[in-house]
């Protein structure tokens, strides 16, 4: 990570007496693309709006490009228009009473740039989103996908220091959303602009981010690269919310020091070889195993670690994968296998997984 672009320290935002964001701290590097991911009401949008200056926090500090834009201690709150950030709104917020060109030129006109420069920058921005042919069209006559592109062009036209995205793809249909995801990632790499992105769609978050910040009830659960978040979830919430995982209750074996391999007593008298990414405190009572990381084979266990007998209870064919519900000594296990691996319901099988995929969760 290179030099910091956005530094948030102990941010608190309240709506009346209800705290929406409770002490969030986060640093975003130059050119980095960070995504705030979480269920609705987790404070991700509020955090984003506080960065933009649209929400007044009640505590903490926010610095953008080295300048303090909000500080509770100094009683400083720079208004939104002076922060030099740009934002793409969930509803696009494309002004219906203006043409596409006027929409995109808005930020440039506010800054009193010369005519030719405005023309050049608007053209460049519209080219980026392939909307140049629509420049003279009234914005009210655009489809949802086109409005989305105009909103994007408008946000990048005045070369902001920081780009904020508030669930920009949530109003598009699934196919268009997948296309725009690819385009956004591409655009973001080409511009090299620092961006913060808010979404509740975990697939989207994993696909387009350098780092993902998982939030829940106003606080941060985990920060990490998409691979980190997926492979090493820290908490039950992260394991459950991102991807699909089996949460297995049990007890950490005594004497575990870490980080590293630990023993974990699951129900039914089985001991799992698990992995702790943190130094265990001793009270941990859950491990998580991704449904995709569990292998299945016919036959009986061979005595190796984490190879356990089970019975196929139910098979759900989903096309891209098959989902099995497997009865095993510790209860039930959900397993996703490629459609090439077929087992009949009722078949006796073994399940197996690598110790580093059996992740000890923090309490």
């Amino acid at each position, binding site marked *: 990570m290179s030099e910091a672009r956005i530094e948030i320290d102990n941010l608190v935002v309240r709506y009346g007496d209800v705290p929406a964001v409770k002490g969030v701290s986060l640093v975003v590097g130059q050119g980095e693309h960070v995504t705030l991911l979480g269920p609705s009401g987790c404070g991700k949008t509020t955090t984003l709006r506080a960065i933009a200056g649209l929400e007044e926090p009640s505590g903490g500090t926010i610095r953008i490009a080295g300048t303090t834009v909000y500080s509770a201690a100094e009683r*400083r709150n720079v*208004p939104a*228009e002076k922060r030099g950030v740009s*934002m793409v*709104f969930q509803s696009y*917020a494309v002004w219906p009473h203006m043409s596409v060109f006027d929409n995109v030129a*808005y930020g440039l006109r506010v800054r009193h740039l010369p005519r030719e420069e405005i023309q050049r920058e608007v053209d460049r921005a519209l080219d980026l989103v392939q909307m140049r042919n629509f420049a003279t069209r*009234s914005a009210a*006559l655009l489809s949802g996908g086109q409005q989305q592109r105009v909103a994007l062009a408008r946000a990048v036209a005045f070369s902001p220091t920081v780009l904020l995205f508030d669930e920009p793809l949530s109003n598009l249909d699934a196919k268009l959303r997948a296309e725009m995801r690819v385009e956004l990632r591409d655009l973001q790499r080409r511009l090299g602009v620092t961006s913060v992105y808010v979404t509740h769609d975990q697939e989207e978050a994993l696909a387009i981010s350098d780092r993902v910040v998982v939030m829940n009830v106003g606080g941060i659960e985990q920060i990490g690269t998409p691979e980190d978040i997926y492979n090493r979830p820290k908490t039950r919430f992260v394991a459950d919310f991102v991807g699909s995982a089996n949460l297995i209750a049990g007890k950490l074996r005594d004497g575990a020091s870490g980080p590293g391999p630990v023993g974990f007593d699951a129900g039914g008298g089985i001991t799992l070889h698990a992995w702790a990414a943190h130094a265990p405190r001793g009270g941990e009572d859950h491990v998580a195993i991704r449904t995709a990381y569990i292998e299945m084979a016919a036959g009986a266990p061979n005595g190796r670690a984490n190879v356990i007998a089970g019975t196929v209870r139910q098979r759900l064919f989903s096309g891209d994968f098959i989902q099995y519900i497997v009865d095993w000594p510790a209860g039930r296990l959900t397993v996703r296998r490629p459609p090439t691996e077929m087992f009949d319901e009722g078949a006796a099988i073994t399940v197996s997984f690598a110790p580093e995929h059996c992740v000890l969760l923090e309490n």
Partner: protein
Amino acid sequence: MLRGADRARWLPSSQTAATLAIVIFCGGLVLYPLVYLVMESLNTGEPDVFPPGEYGVNNYLDLIDDWHILANTAFVACFATAMAVAIGFLAAWTLTRTQVPFRAQLERLMELPYYMTPLVGALAWSILAAPHNGFVNQLWHVTGATGDLVDIYSPFGIAWVMALFEGTVAFVMISAAMKSMDPALEEGARVLGAGKWRTMLTVTLPLVMPGVLGATVFVFAEMLGSFAAAFVLGLPARYVVVTTALWEAVQSFPPDYPRAAAMGIALFAVMFGTLSLYRWMVRQGNFATITGKAFRPRRMAMGRLAWVLFAGCIAYVVVAVVLPLSALLLTSFQRFATVILSQSELTLANYRTALGFGAVRSALTNSLILGIGVATVGVAIMTVLVWIIYRSRAPGHSLVEYVVMFPQAVPRMVFGLALLWAWLNIPIPIYGTLWLLALAYFTVLLPLGVRTLAGVVLQIDKSLEECARVCGASWFYQLRTVTMPLLRPGIAAAWLLVFIASVRELGVSIFLVSPNAKVIAPSIISSWLSSSSELSAALALIQTAAVFVALIVLLRATRRYSGELP
């Protein structure tokens, strides 16, 4: 950078101050006169002395002796409400649930009666159906028959005219309820084997019932406070309701203010109770199946019956608008009103009097001045109010909403009386001037203007404004380039609606006009009292024309806007 911090601290307090000032100002405008009226209603001493020398509840006890007035009021209001809701329900069902031909055009036509005032309607129907010389009875006599075919000067006549003009209100409210019902609920019944009529009776009707009940209660409250029809059609036959009794008490010599005040407060209490019931019903969970979302209802094919329904809608528009306006038009060009054209003496004299005769002409000019003035200044203030209510986070903004909407619960006549009494006793010399009328109009039209503007403000996505700020625009630049252009159609609509409502205002005006400050609706009343139905017809048509011109401008303006926003 510190400037930003200072402003952040300064803004909320200035908003709070503005909110407080507006609450006090509007609250004063509304409540202060009512306090005067309550005091006067308790006056048992000398009627003209204020503040009263003796207090007591005798004025209220006297109302019990006038039980026939209360009974009359209740009878007319109930009967008219039943008719209005029947009209509204049938029309709403026809237009939202069946494949009636020319549906879109019909829907527009059905709104027309709203822009005819009850006063104009009552005048027209008295010309049409008065005993002896009403047009219908004239024709009846030509056939050689004796006696009268119809008599509009009766409780049924009053209820008929009131129902015609409230029917469209019921229609709008009930069709809103029907439009917001998920058609899947009806389709479910059809799929399970229920026929058209069974579906309507077992699914549609129970689901829209809360909407229908709400409309019934609302219309009933309006009926209680209505004056014009009871005045024009009730007094000739000495059929007195509360509003007309109130008027007579003030007009008597010497004016019996305590009695009028007691009647007014009693009427206000009943209407307030009824409207509270309405609000309570709307808030109840009864509407659980009816979401806020607008659905595209699927309409039933009705076969030949569709044309019967079509004819029904047309018939309503004919009796509520076409027939009355034609009667007025014919009368206004005659020396003596007659429908037998061979006896007719055509003349322009009535219009010459209306536009040339000093008193009448000044009433017309005054109405226009008031309409334009109140609309312009009023809508500017209302815009600020709406912003405070729906966009600011200042404490007390919900109180502002309550205060602003309060005049809706006060019958116009009662508010007019309260203002009359209040300003007679306040040593600020605006009684008898247009200023008092302007103040009164502003107060009673607050709910109308604010509701219209709120509809537009609430539709504007907040992020449209926020985006401008993030793009670097200052608050003023944002207002100029984003907020105002988006609000413009709403402001235009509010301006025109307030203008229309001012030009046709009667209930408040009737107590506040003076020889130096006449306006049109009370002038129509006085010309009617001096038994010139021909001059009244001309005046009523001029008033209606002003309203319809404004209406056409309004439709143009809103259509152009909706063309931009698909």
